[in-house]
């Protein structure tokens, strides 16, 4: 085991993927020699050459379309979109093409080998164009898988699983944790299966659910609640599509309560989807309404970032309301 931060873990996963297959390519804005603006692709160009690790022109639409073609041809493209906020110029290519390649051709063609990596989320004083969490837009499109790691161990395992998946994956990386989150990461190859949630801590009174950087908020809130004698079960969803209904439902059946925390705005956020499904699965076991602690329905602010964030205090308050319902 080695101690790595999330960027190192991602770099390590990319290194393994590059070494294992000569047709794996990494590309995006500034990812070449410079190693990307966050340095996730450092040293890979030196190691694998300019043909396989390269800077693209500044066009997300081009990057995504190029990735689609490359994947359809049978290579393994790992494309970086510099910030998740800038994935929207690529939206048509991802939503109409990547997601539907297999379906529309009757599986004559597919782009299953494709991964889009992109840093998402706030907490870095980035304001409205460097802080968005756009996972819900993609979750609404059948054909795309979506994963979000919360620590270096997951980042490596989930990324390797995404790269080897036979379906295209949008891989959201919480940039706030890139350097802040460090931990033990096996140096050898391993995968964390897509579609499986992780029960991080067992508890009896309420299930708290989050993913990526927001996991920290529910962890801290749970610590506060434990002092009041409330026992929280903590689940990291890890994959947004497909998401692990079974694990969440099993937990809620036990605790009778669910709180979902995500950073994206409340309205049409993925929390709404989870709430609807769990209400269906666990209706007779619920002891309080499913709670959602989310970003506000405004663009991501700068001066009021703290006020906007679904932080541990807001989560704690929601736990208390839920338990006292």
């Amino acid at each position, binding site marked *: 085991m080695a101690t790595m931060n999330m960027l190192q873990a991602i770099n390590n996963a990319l290194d393994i993927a590059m070494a294992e297959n000569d047709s794996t390519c990494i590309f995006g*804005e*500034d990812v*070449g*020699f*410079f*190693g990307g*603006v966050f340095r996730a692709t450092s040293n890979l160009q030196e190691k694998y050459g300019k043909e396989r690790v*390269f*800077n693209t*022109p*500044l*066009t*997300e*639409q*081009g990057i995504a379309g190029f990735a689609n073609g490359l994947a359809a041809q049978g290579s393994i493209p790992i494309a970086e979109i510099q910030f998740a*906020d*800038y994935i*929207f*110029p690529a939206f048509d290519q991802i939503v109409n093409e990547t997601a539907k390649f297999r379906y529309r051709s009757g599986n004559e063609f597919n782009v299953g080998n494709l991964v889009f990596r992109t840093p998402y989320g706030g907490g870095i*004083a*980035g*304001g*409205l*164009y*460097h802080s968005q969490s756009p996972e819900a837009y993609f979750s609404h499109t059948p054909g795309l898988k979506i994963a979000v790691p919360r620590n270096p161990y997951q980042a490596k395992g989930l990324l390797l699983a995404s790269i080897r998946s036979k379906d295209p994956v949008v891989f959201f990386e919480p940039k706030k944790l890139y350097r802040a989150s460090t931990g033990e990461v096996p140096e050898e190859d391993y995968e964390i299966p897509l579609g499986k949630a992780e029960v991080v801590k067992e508890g009896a009174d309420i299930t708290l659910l989050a993913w990526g950087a927001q996991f920290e908020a529910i962890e801290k809130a749970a610590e506060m609640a434990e002092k009041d004698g409330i026992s929280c079960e903590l689940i990291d969803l890890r994959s947004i599509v497909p998401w692990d209904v079974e694990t969440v439902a099993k937990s809620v059946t036990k605790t009778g309560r669910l709180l979902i925390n995500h950073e994206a705005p*409340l*309205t049409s956020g993925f929390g709404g989807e989870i709430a609807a499904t769990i209400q269906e699965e666990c209706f007779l076991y619920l002891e309080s309404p499913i709670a959602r602690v989310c970003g*506000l*329905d*405004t*663009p991501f*602010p*700068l*001066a*009021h970032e*703290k*006020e*906007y964030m679904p*932080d541990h*205090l*807001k989560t704690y*308050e929601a736990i208390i309301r839920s338990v006292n319902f």
Partner: protein
Amino acid sequence: MTNPNNVTLTDNHTVEFVSGNALAIPTLRILKEDGTLHKGASLPDLDKETALKMYDTMSFIRVLDERMVAAQRQGRISFYMQCLGEEAAVTGSAGALDFEDMIMGQYREHAAIHYRGFTLDQFMNQMFSNEKDLGKGRQMPIHYGSNELNYMTISSPLGTQIPQATGYAYGQKLKGEGKCTICYFGEGAASEGDFHAGLNMAAVHKAPVIFFCRNNGYAISTPADEQFKGDGIATRGVGYGMKTIRVDGADLLAVYAATKEARRIAVEDHEPVLIEAIAYRLGAHSTSDDPSGYRSKEEEEKFRSNDPVERYRLWLVKQGWLNEEEDAKRIEQLRGDILDAVKKAEVIDKPAIDELITDVYEEPTPHLVKQLEDTKQHIKKYPDAYPVTAGRIS
């Protein structure tokens, strides 16, 4: 139009391809580095007052950049972007416009908004996201904008302003105002789909827009030769069927002359124009960037001697329009003024919490009003956790 395909059909009976660099576009240069004119070059029609105003803007921006990069290093602001090396390109073009012409920048064009009258305090209020910021503290530092000054607020997603400029300019033409729009962008942003969409629509619909590409050699770490092939960005203007010129971006007089004529073409002939200004981004991309990772000190040094501000200053002195002693004093004074303005802006309150939900829609919707109310109640309970707003919630 020669035929329904809208192409010129000149017969050829051998297989011959036109090469990608077949259009060698010349570069307009007027001022030499020593402040004298190139042989054969003629001075643009430029009065003393405008000439000095442009100089004031360039020297202001230079001092502002230097001080704000330092302020960022001291942790007083979160982020900064300077325009070192490109002062003449932005100032010379902005100076050639009418006040009512619209300016749509990318982000490195603060010289243009200063030229229009954006004050030192206004700069600071934006950078410190305080309650006096016209943008209400929502965007990162350097995202300026002012309706009063006809300067569209900067948006971070690159290239998005290019087709918008076309639409804006078309509206100006419809209203017969005799005005135009200038749209700035980098050679990197010229790779975005929006660039192609914007230029094509401008050409077809004859919008009075000046596309101004600052080709400064880099898009963050990516050098221009990994960004595009062909001869610069200028050839694309020709490809889209518009009048195009390439200028030395470190030569204020060349930029000024080119933009004056571009404005005339846009407004009188109702045609879009493309200007490519060749410059060098002498500084880092932003304060989050370290160029030593992707370019050499020697390269930077080579361009450091090609200083656009110094070149223009020498010319002004030769014209007898600038007194060197007074100029040095003024620059010293500016340094002090900027420091004072920093101190003033950093203690002004952040915008009130109510601004969290304004301007999302024209009027806050009921769900936003409720979310704000809940947020306020929450902050009251935990005032220490939200120091920016807690003390001012009634």
